[in-house]
């Protein structure tokens, strides 16, 4: 954050600071609290959970009770513990996917928007073509090609997701490039890289930041979907999508699928709350994916 306030024109700093927290009210607070709780759970869970997520701890297929809040699954494992444990897969996976996609998208978008010409044309056609696929289908095809597993699913998700940010950033860079202060930077003989890095990028990243927050929930969903199909995390790992698959095979023991589903719902809803608030506050257009 410090880098940003250094490079922005001084007069805009207080405005930016006020803006930074203006979005935080109503549902957004709920969202932030829920996300913080999940992150805390993911970080500290091994310290206080009484059950092992991979070991049988009771009779098989027991309904919810005082000792097992969400019952046990077909192997006698505690469903509640496993549902909490799922955050330790989904949250880091989604974070890595979003960050990688943002980095790739930023580089591509910045290059395309700043240099224009054939480079822009070539990069943007790649973006168009990648975005021509429904994301889940392309992610499924890539994961199937690379071989099922959570690592390959992550690669597939990054490949599917970066074009959104490239497109967003490019549009922003093109708009900022024409501002007068950029022109004056050219006039005093600043180098291209300096102008791009210090004068254009800091003024262009907001839509990417807002959209990536909103997308976090969607990526959590996509991870679960790929795992549910059997292309992401595999059983016995306590991943939400994989757990719902187990719930589907034990259809009448509703609690096995209910717990991970509620976990996904809470995370996605929380990120949607925060993303909505950010979007309204920064007046950013929603990316169409």
């Amino acid at each position, binding site marked *: 954050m410090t880098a940003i306030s250094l490079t922005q024109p001084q007069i805009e700093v207080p405005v930016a600071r006020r803006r930074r927290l203006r979005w935080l009210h109503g549902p957004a607070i709920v969202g932030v609290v829920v996300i913080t709780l999940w992150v805390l759970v993911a970080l500290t869970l091994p310290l206080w959970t009484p059950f092992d997520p991979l070991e049988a701890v009771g009779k098989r297929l027991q309904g919810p009770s005082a000792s097992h809040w969400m019952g046990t699954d077909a192997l006698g494992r505690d469903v509640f513990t496993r549902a909490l444990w799922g955050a330790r897969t989904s949250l880091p996976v989604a974070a890595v996917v979003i960050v990688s996609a943002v980095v790739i998208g930023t580089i591509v978008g910045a290059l395309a928007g700043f240099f224009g010409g054939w480079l822009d044309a070539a990069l943007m056609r790649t973006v*168009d073509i990648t975005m021509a696929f429904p994301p889940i289908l*392309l992610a499924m095809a890539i994961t199937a090609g690379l071989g099922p597993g959570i690592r390959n699913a992550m690669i597939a998700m990054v490949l599917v997701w970066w074009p959104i940010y490239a497109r967003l950033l490019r549009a922003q860079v093109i708009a900022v490039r024409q501002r007068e202060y950029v022109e004056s930077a050219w006039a005093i003989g600043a180098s291209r890289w300096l102008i791009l890095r210090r004068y254009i990028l800091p003024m262009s990243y907001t839509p990417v930041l807002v959209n990536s927050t909103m997308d976090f929930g969607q990526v959590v969903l996509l991870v679960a979907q790929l795992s549910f*199909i059997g292309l992401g995390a595999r059983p016995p790992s306590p991943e939400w999508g994989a757990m719902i698959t187990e719930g589907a095979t034990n259809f009448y023991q509703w609690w096995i699928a209910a717990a991970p589903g509620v976990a996904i719902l809470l995370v996605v809803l929380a990120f949607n709350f925060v993303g909505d608030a950010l979007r309204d506050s920064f007046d950013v257009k929603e990316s169409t*994916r």
Partner: protein
Amino acid sequence: MRRYLLRRLAVMPVLLLGVATVVFIVSRLTPADPLVSIIGERQLTNPEVVAAAKARWGLDSSIPVQYFKYMKNLLHGDLGTSFTTRRSVLSDLWDRLPATLELTFAALFIGVVFGVGLGVLAARKRNTIIDHIARFFALLGSSLPAFWAGLILLYVFYARLGILPGPGRLDPRSAEPGHITGFFTIDSLLHGDWSMFTAALKHLILPASVLGWGVVGIVSRLVRASLLDEFSMEYVRVARAMGLRERTVVNTHALRNALLPTITIVGFLFAFLITGAVLTEKIFSWPGLGSYAVDASRKLDFPAVIGVTILGGVAFLLTNLITDVLYALADPRIRLS
């Protein structure tokens, strides 16, 4: 307008070529020998079987040759033969298309009807408790994992309450209606089979609601926002000042203009529906393209995976084109360039 259309159409082949190329690259990503999934591990030691399979799938030639072979086949509409069903992928896709279309249209119908209704309600009761509930319900739709919601609804309405049928397009053991359109609801009506029509319709309710709920979320949010925009316009103030009933102001004046932007998201909705359909079909054993894609990628049936992915890409491109054109036709103020 015509020039814009021509330009868009001229770019289409380039994009289609790109789509096909991306899919070709994806299909060659696999570090595993694709032969294994074709002929099975036990046959790998049999040189005759291996050679025959290689020749049949073009695996004995270099990558560029394979690429041209693949493109040539594609231009002839030949998507190859599925490893698992042993049928041509194109006819597999063709057989399963109606099931998916029936489901998506039903979901789109539910989503648009309830989405517009909820959006209008939320906008008219802006910032009241009704507005908050409507918006939360909509947000829930776009946050729910569709495959999980399907499972839970099946459990409640089929297993517990028994008021709706279980998975599938028809009751188990009942024959399909004679093929006319492939839409069971329409075909059964055309055959005058009323009981089959109600069965098909009942089977549609749960999967289409699961899928449509997400659409409700997207549509209602958009309708609410654009209706609020219209409310601040002068023509609405004039209409209100003239003493028109609020319902008339909303339904015959503001809503018409507010619905225009909804057209722009048809392409987005389509992508959403495809994504949702893939997993919803799996949960409801719906014999459409989504469950075909899931089964194919699970079994590493590459020709089938490729076929579905290409079809998805092409359909997506076409919907986006149609969306843009529709929007231009609906709103003469838009000048496409």
